[in-house]
């Protein structure tokens, strides 16, 4: 069977201790939560590390709380917990739905929100065994010098395949980050959309000793609707091959005030399309069509994840249209 390469494991129970460990070991260390992304990648030799810093013991990362018009979701919140939490279901139903569509029941009971947002990017040329990647001659994200998705390309375009990221971006979520500087804990927060960078090798705008501690989501007002759709070949286990989240702000008359279309599994960061241009239009079947066309025109899925890229582009248009149609009656 595939065996994990040897590494050391740390189980700190304080945030500061975890960060200090991460700072001490630099690139040789990584935080680990559910491990459902990290462990398979380690087994495949795709990720290498000397020190795994388990975050489960840190109280601060747990819990879902309503606080000052925002829902605070700890980074260690389990995916099942997220899907089933009454507050999340009541205020952020699309997030609960997205979480319920991740992987399988087992992985949802192991995986966490923090891990899901910080999931490594995926590509058919990297999520492979050592032998396979050796045969390929590597690529920018492993030991090679070329990208096989975009031949001649300068950057890795492996895809972010997180189910919760697009929907949280649509909700306007903000990530809280803790870091370690000069032996002291420092905190900052940024819009979730800004967590992601366009380099698939290092797609998170996090410094070495930084971790995500929580996500804060402003409670949407009554006229704001967010929806999510994911396409995968199988109804369980599979990562999304296309995913879309849509935010529609509706005026009293039923027209579009503002909105966001978030498309993911394209490249290392979700594509956020502001719907300004469509403001004022009635939210109806025509709008759904227009959004589908817009997604088709503006997004070009790459042959990074499995499945025909041209088909994924067409599928994207349909998913967007259907998502909007589903949301018409809300």
């Amino acid at each position, binding site marked *: 069977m595939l065996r994990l390469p040897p590494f050391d494991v740390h189980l700190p129970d304080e945030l500061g201790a975890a960060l200090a460990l991460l700072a001490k070991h630099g690139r040789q260390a990584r935080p680990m939560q559910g491990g459902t992304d990290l462990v398979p990648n380690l087994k495949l030799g795709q990720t290498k590390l000397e020190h795994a810093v388990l975050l489960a013991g840190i109280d601060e990362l747990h819990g879902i709380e309503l606080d000052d018009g925002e829902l605070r979701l700890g980074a260690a919140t389990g995916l099942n917990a997220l899907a089933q939490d009454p507050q999340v279901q009541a205020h952020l139903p699309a997030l609960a739905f997205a979480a319920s569509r991740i992987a399988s029941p087992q992985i949802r009971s192991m995986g966490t929100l923090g891990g899901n947002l910080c999931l490594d990017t995926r590509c058919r040329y990297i999520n492979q065994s050592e032998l396979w990647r050796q045969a390929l001659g590597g690529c920018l994200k492993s030991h090679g010098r070329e990208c096989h998705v975009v*031949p001649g390309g300068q950057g890795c375009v492996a895809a972010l395949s997180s189910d919760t990221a697009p929907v949280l971006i649509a909700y306007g979520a903000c990530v809280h980050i803790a870091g370690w500087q000069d032996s002291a804990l420092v905190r900052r927060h940024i819009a979730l959309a800004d967590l992601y960078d366009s380099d698939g090798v290092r797609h998170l705008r996090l410094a070495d000793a930084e971790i995500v501690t929580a996500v804060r989501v402003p409670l949407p007002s009554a006229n704001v609707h967010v929806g999510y759709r994911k396409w995968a070949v199988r109804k369980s286990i599979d990562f999304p091959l296309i995913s879309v989240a849509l935010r529609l702000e509706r005026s009293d008359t039923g027209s579009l005030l503002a909105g966001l279309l978030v498309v993911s599994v394209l490249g290392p960061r979700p594509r956020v399309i502001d719907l300004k241009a469509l403001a004022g239009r009635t939210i109806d079947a025509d709008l759904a069509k227009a959004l589908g066309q817009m997604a088709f025109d503006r997004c070009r899925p790459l042959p990074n994840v499995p499945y025909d890229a041209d*088909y994924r582009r067409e599928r994207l248009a*349909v998913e967007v249209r259907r998502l909007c149609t589903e949301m018409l009656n809300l």
Partner: protein
Amino acid sequence: MSRPISSDKTARDLHRLDTDGAEGSGPIVGGRHGKHDALPLMSGIDRYTDDITLPRMLHCKLVRSPHAHAKIIAIDTSGAEALEGVHAVVIGSEMPIPYGVIPWTPDEHALALHKVRFVGDPVAAVAAVSEEVAIEACRRIVVRYEVLEALVTPQAALARADLKIHEDNRHGNITKHVHLEFGDVDAALAAAALVVEGDYQFHGSTHAPIEPHCAIASVDGKGLLTVWSATQVPHYLQRELAKVLELPMRQIRVIQPAVGGAFGGKSEPFALEFCVAKLAFKTGRPVKCLYTREEVFLAHRGRHPFDMHYRTAFAADGKILAIDAKSLLDGGAYSSFGLVTTYYSGQLLGAPYRFPTYRFDSTRVYTNKPACGPKRGHGSVQPRFALEVQLDKASRTLGLDPIELRRRNFIGENSVTINGFHIGSNGFLQCLEAVVQASGWAEKWGKLPRGHGIGVAGSCYISGTNYCIYPTELPQSAVQMCLDRSGRVRVFAGTSEIGQGSTTMLAAIAAQELGVELDDVRVLAADSDLCPVDLGAYSSRITLMAGNACLTAARTLGDKIRDILAQLWGIPAADIRLEHRRAFSLTNPQVWMPIQEAFIITESKLGLLGSTGSYTSPQSAVHGDYRGGTIGASPAYSFTAHIAQVQVDEDTGEVTIEHIWCAHDCGHAINPVLVEGQIEGSVYMGAAEAVMEHHDTLPSGLRTDGRRRDSGPGVDGLLMASSLLDYRMPTSLDVPQLTALIVQAPDPRGPYGAKEAGEGPLHSAIPAIANAVFDAVGVRIDNLPISPEKVLRGLRNQAGRKPC
């Protein structure tokens, strides 16, 4: 000694212990019973191969080629040998004798000798104290290659006769060519009212049993080698081990522990078995090798991709006049069962329909990919797809209900196919009728709203092949049976239980014939030291062959018991029944005794109660009299009809299979629960490969000398899907509703009339789905799998519509 039993209930209660209340319960053969061996397996008690650990056991890992096609220039193992914890390294030159499951085509080596032929071809093996050390040692083995151009499509392999994947192959890269013609096909085609002609592509798929291959070897100091392996052919494994290791067969013991699924994927020897054996000799310690999931995909031997060109001629009334078939088989790097596959691609099409002329021309070529072999429905699933789709096309053109078209062409029972195979019982019409009724065909076909459709297809399969894969007049199956004073029956059989239920089948026959309960039978199977030879679990042969052998052995013992009791009771032996732990007189219910007592009495009179039974296939009225005419001939044939109902999403092209009804003529259902399970599992597997699964290499550029083409991934022969994440087998949420319907047309050649159920029910699932897709939206997908993008393209072509 007879113990009279009165009709008085109290008196009967007194005997309850002996008869264990079994009185009145139904028959064992034909009754709905659970799987005999299931509970201990699912409780972590009985062991699969990787569950076995031996003292001082070492772990083995293989070094595999990163090139699809290359010469091996040098192998330097010193780095591995120097590593602490490494006990031995073995390379190809230490096992230079070639082997192959088909004795006519030995083209494999335990480890590659001079050349590697696919990405993943094993070149060296290490035995070390742990898997981790073995993995590290493998990294330290340096192999120098001279990279050759890789041929990854059968067309390229045909075109490049100059670049031979196997240098000593006679005709370029062709591993086998079969051309057979029966009757005047061209004349029939010329005279036909309708000729349906088309190209069909059947894609590759793999077995993907959940248990990966695993083997352990141990030597005992006196030279006896024991190999435990997750195999479905322990006998062939023993033979090939003997050949490659140059040992007499008597010095090799092969034990097949519980196997976690096989489906044809474990039906020949693999590198790991030779390597652990060799390393056990080199180190004097037990050695285990467990494949990773990726290695299972590399071991492959899955369904051959076929490129087919079919012409089928019809009379105006729908009668088939001729079939003209041409197939190109993508064989992968080695022959495997390929010789047989090439024959099967034509030979197994002869029923359930009658047609007066037939020609097939099949060519199998080597390519630089994992070798293809037998997957459930070996060699006949692909041609079946082409033919059944053509029948659907014909029925549309001729304005006939496809059910009616199939009825009109029915070959009948006790008939002979155009290629000379003798069909005995044939329940195909009942199968058709059963699925028509169950599915509500009459209200649905052509009548469902657009986007919804229903399709039918039929098929036929073998119950074992009449001839062994090596020439022999020895029995194909044999059973030894022993009764003892405890009231237990022991059955020793070489049969491979791989989940299909062979152990339960043997237990049922023994219990039925000897008057014990299922749990009173202990089946000891697949241990070459303890059990007589059985050829293995392939071509759906065990129920018919080992079942017959078991029946013979059991009846021999039953007769002995009846003879003794007849003397004792002074009644004719024919009047004595053995049932549910009792022996009793049919005519006088007062005369009976517990079966255990009957065993004891008989043993005390005759000595130890043992018997044997052998099965050798019939020598006459089986096959045609021409070169190749024996290949594919079977003692009896199973028949199947499928109806599939689908929904097609016209925006996305996605096909949802809603329901599949499958009626299967298994002859006689020795255990209906298990037969249903085989039907359901087969249909599931067929549906999965029709719409989801695909085993292939990535389409790619070319690399001969490290340089690459401008586009494409640049390397040939890399598997598209080599994990259970990327190779998408349906989950519990993707599976259609499955209805299994058992049809029983008993065949005199089968035990109690039984034929087979393990493979037949897969075949026509695939064309039934394709035909249903056409019924739903008028799109024909003739190249599998039926993926959404192809359906969408078909819809576009149909409507001239633009994207979105």
